[in-house]
């Protein structure tokens, strides 16, 4: 960094953001001109209120985030009454909206590896829960609604860490952030629509309950894999 005489405070903020980015990002190819391509590049070129583009970006983030999709699949795996699906998905949405908005607004920069490792563990937890493991091991069924809300809180913290890396302009930040959050919910509903169709066909299959065991065991494995990747990434980055 070269010393700059003006805007020292803003510089310090940018510096800490840059350090945060360095901490949490796997370094990509270094570009001489510092051109940032893709979604982040677009966001860093614009300012002011852009409602629909940010809804799009939120939706894209949700649909391309396999960790969110896995948790969503785990949560609705055994839910088939629309009333229940709506209740659980709303709890998840409430959780991640709260921590995402607060996290970005107050700039909580939690290491993305740490938060993604926790999200990986939430996949493991939900799959074990579906398998009835907690009833078998401890003789109790932990409250599934509370767990879903807590998953949401962790996922929102992860979203906030990623949005901070986007460096959204101050001008229009709140409106754009709310639009991004709406987009995340839109993405969740789109993903849910497809998940429920697939699950609808699958549940009608006589072998469903037997196959459900294997499916949830695979989900445990995927959750462990996600967690392992993030932990390994964390140690590689420090």
């Amino acid at each position, binding site marked *: 960094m*070269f010393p700059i005489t003006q805007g020292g405070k803003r510089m310090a903020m940018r510096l800490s953001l840059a350090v945060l980015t360095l901490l949490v990002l796997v370094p990509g190819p270094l570009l001489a*001109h510092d051109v940032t391509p*893709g979604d982040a*590049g677009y966001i860093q070129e*614009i300012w002011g209120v852009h409602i629909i583009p940010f809804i*799009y970006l939120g939706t894209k983030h949700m649909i391309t985030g396999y960790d969110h999709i896995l948790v969503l699949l785990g949560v609705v795996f055994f839910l088939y009454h629309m009333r229940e699906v709506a209740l659980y998905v709303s709890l998840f949405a409430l959780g991640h909206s709260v921590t995402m908005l607060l996290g970005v607004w107050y700039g909580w920069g939690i290491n993305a590896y740490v938060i993604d490792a926790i999200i990986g563990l939430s996949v493991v937890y939900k799959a074990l829960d579906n398998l009835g493991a907690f009833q078998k091991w401890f003789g109790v069924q932990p409250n599934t609604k509370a767990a879903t809300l807590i998953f949401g809180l962790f996922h929102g913290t992860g979203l906030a860490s990623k949005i901070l890396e986007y460096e959204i302009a101050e001008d229009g930040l709140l409106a754009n952030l709310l639009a991004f959050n709406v987009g995340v919910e839109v993405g969740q509903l789109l993903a849910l629509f497809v998940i429920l169709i697939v699950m*609808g066909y699958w549940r009608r299959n006589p072998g469903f309950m037997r196959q459900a065991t294997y499916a949830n065991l695979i989900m445990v494995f995927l959750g462990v894999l996600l967690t392992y990747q993030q932990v390994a990434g964390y140690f590689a980055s420090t």
Partner: protein
Amino acid sequence: MYNAPKPKLEDLPTKAQLRRSSIIAGIGAVAIAVMVYMPAELGQDPTGVGSLLGLTEMGEIKRQLAEEAAADEALHGTDGSSWLMDDLLGLFVSTAQAQEAWTDELTFTLAPGDSTEIKATMEQGATLFYAWTSNGGRVNFDLHAHANGQDVTCEKGRGQTEGAGSFETPFAGDHGWFWRNRDAEAVTVTLQLRGDYSAIVRSE
């Protein structure tokens, strides 16, 4: 044993309902691909809906950034010849004596979407003082330097109309601004400079 009972067949959606939902999902996926994904990612808008939603602009900016990133990589790559190349490509801007405090004053106009680069050739540890204002609109900038495989970003800004300050160079080479107009109107920027530099290099 699970945490939930086996679903009863009569509680599940019927095959006809599922088939209907699948068709809706299929049509929805095609519509999203053509009307949302193509404009927002590729900058192509066959239906006109993307432009209506403001998504085509996103796709165009992304495509432009991807091309610039590819061009940068080809130009600066890994051989560390960056500032030599800049000198070859750069053309010297005629400089005029400004107020007694400033050595140079440069004025340039950018149409919406256009960009330019203005840099000062400096030794290591030299200081440059600057002030700039924009007329007609707001401008994005990236104050940076790269030479012989080293690079540094000093300050990035967007949607601004003025700036002033100074910086000290961490290494020898060309230090300066990449400017881009992302506003709706043409922008004229006036940049004033003084300090320890040997030349001003401008490249489109």
